[in-house]
């Protein structure tokens, strides 16, 4: 390379090192986000493979207000988020403290717990679909062995949401465990030893020392899990596709259907904007709340 060009490469390193990331984010995230805003006040139709836009803000809002699937989808999402996050945080916390108090087996526990996080959610959905199978799934086989009748895990309106929630708990409790266990391993040993010397019982140590010291990690696990639970899609798409009826319909799945099954790009964009606003509002509020309680 001629030395003047080489000089240029060296002298502008500071700029071209950040440039590709900025360009990528502008073109693939900022521009589409702006386009999403424009889409949300438009109706888009494809004529001869070309997209034709017309400005119809009222129509999209009307569609949003009269969408019969939206209220159950929102309700299911809220139930899903509250139940999965509460159960996953409790189980993950209990398991992290338990494993931390055992002298052996940490490596094995950690190895096993990484597995569900790395496997494609779609593969997990299909695994559980087989296990929930009415005729020959694992659960109905086990019930049959106990002399109990088969249960329609995914097909009955009352049970489907619970079945889907169980899969999520199985899938993501290990993630909470990993975050909290890393925090448990980082706990200051001297504080706990000092409490033992002062005659604190194990129960007091757990509730009055260990759990309060895990606050920051708990806050992180809570925000992570809550936001991902809001966005649940892959597993439910595979297990029930929202059915039976709207029993397991959630907002993200409904969004997919509006966009890509009903091809309503304009209304889908409006729904997206509302969904993003709700998630960001949740993020801001929960960050403020956790900051106030942890510091």
């Amino acid at each position, binding site marked *: 390379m001629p030395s003047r060009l080489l000089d240029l490469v060296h002298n502008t390193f500071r700029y071209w090192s950040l440039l*590709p*990331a900025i360009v990528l984010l502008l073109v693939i995230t900022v521009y589409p986000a702006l386009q999403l805003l424009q889409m949300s006040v438009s109706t888009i139709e494809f004529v001869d493979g070309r997209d034709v836009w017309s400005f119809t803000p009222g129509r999209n809002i009307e569609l949003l207000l009269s969408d019969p699937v939206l209220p159950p989808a929102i309700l299911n999402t809220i139930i899903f988020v509250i139940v999965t996050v509460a159960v996953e945080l409790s189980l993950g916390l209990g398991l992290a403290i338990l494993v931390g108090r055992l002298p052996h087996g940490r490596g094995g526990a950690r190895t096993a717990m*990484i597995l569900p996080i790395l496997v494609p959610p779609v593969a997990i959905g299909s695994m559980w*679909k087989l296990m929930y199978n009415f005729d020959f799934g694992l659960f109905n086989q086990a019930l049959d062995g106990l002399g109990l009748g088969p249960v329609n895990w995914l097909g009955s309106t009352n049970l489907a949401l619970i079945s889907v929630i169980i899969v999520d708990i199985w899938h993501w409790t290990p993630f909470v465990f990993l975050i909290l266990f*890393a925090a448990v391993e980082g706990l200051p040993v001297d504080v706990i030893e000092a409490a033992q010397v002062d005659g604190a019982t194990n129960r007091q140590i757990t509730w009055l020392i260990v759990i309060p010291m895990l606050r920051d990690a708990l806050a992180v696990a809570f925000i992570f899990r809550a936001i991902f639970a809001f966005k649940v899609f892959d597993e439910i798409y595979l297990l029930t596709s929202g059915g039976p009826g709207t029993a397991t319909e959630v907002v993200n799945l409904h969004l997919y259907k509006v966009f890509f099954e009903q091809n309503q790009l304009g209304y889908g964009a409006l729904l997206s904007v509302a969904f*993003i606003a709700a998630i960001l509002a949740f*993020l801001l509020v929960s960050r403020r709340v956790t900051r106030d309680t942890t510091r």
Partner: protein
Amino acid sequence: MNLLYGRERVVGYALMTLAILMIVGPFAWIFLNSLKYQVAIYTGAWVFTPTLSNYAEVLFSRRSDFAHNVGNSLIVAGITTALVLVVGTLAAYSLHRFRWSQWIATGFLGWTLIFHTIPVLTLVGPWYVIFRQLGLYDTLTALIITHVTMNLPMTIWLMMSFFKDIPLELEEAAFVDGCRPLTAFWWITLRLAIPGLIAAGILAFIFSWKEFSIALNLTSRATATVPVAIARFAQQYEVQHAQMAAAAMIATIPAIILMFLGQRFVVRGLTLGAVK
């Protein structure tokens, strides 16, 4: 920690073993089913003659595109990983090492946080329109571009956290010896950040390998990836359960390999920010 003793320790080990079995058990059950003929699945037999016919059927039968889907997934995840490491590492180093004005640094990192938080499906709609306009709809290129962008925030944060652990004095010593910033970055800091590159690389590969909602909507039969193929399997009118189990096991293989090879790297990446 205050260890458990006596009977409490026995109960503790029992509970931990139960938790591990509950996680590993479903994988084992699906693996067994993937070795059964369809008939043995229907009868729920525990004793059966194992067969690899389901794997052969899924991968090599003329009616199945699954081998092709695996190829697509490997191409997309491989190229995505390489690209996101280059773009993300450079950006992380730039933000970490050079004085950017406050609004660029905060704006950039804040936007990656927002982008990482919002449901990716909300952007797939505009992407669909944009890639159609560009003539990139239904190409692996479009999928790779979106996967690189999707993995960019995590890669940048992870690499910044690794760069922070490398003492600045090393580069300063090199400057005294007449080294230029780019040379110091290439020969000193990047070499010391190799564990970070491995962690970020493994995570980017896995996240691209398992990504579903973008691939579902931006691909068709010829460009479909493994997760899309698995979803199609599960939704066929007459579900081939044994083959579905085999396909799920194949999709799990990279996770199992990386779980054993890169465990210590992966844990740091996954729990990033949780522990100070």
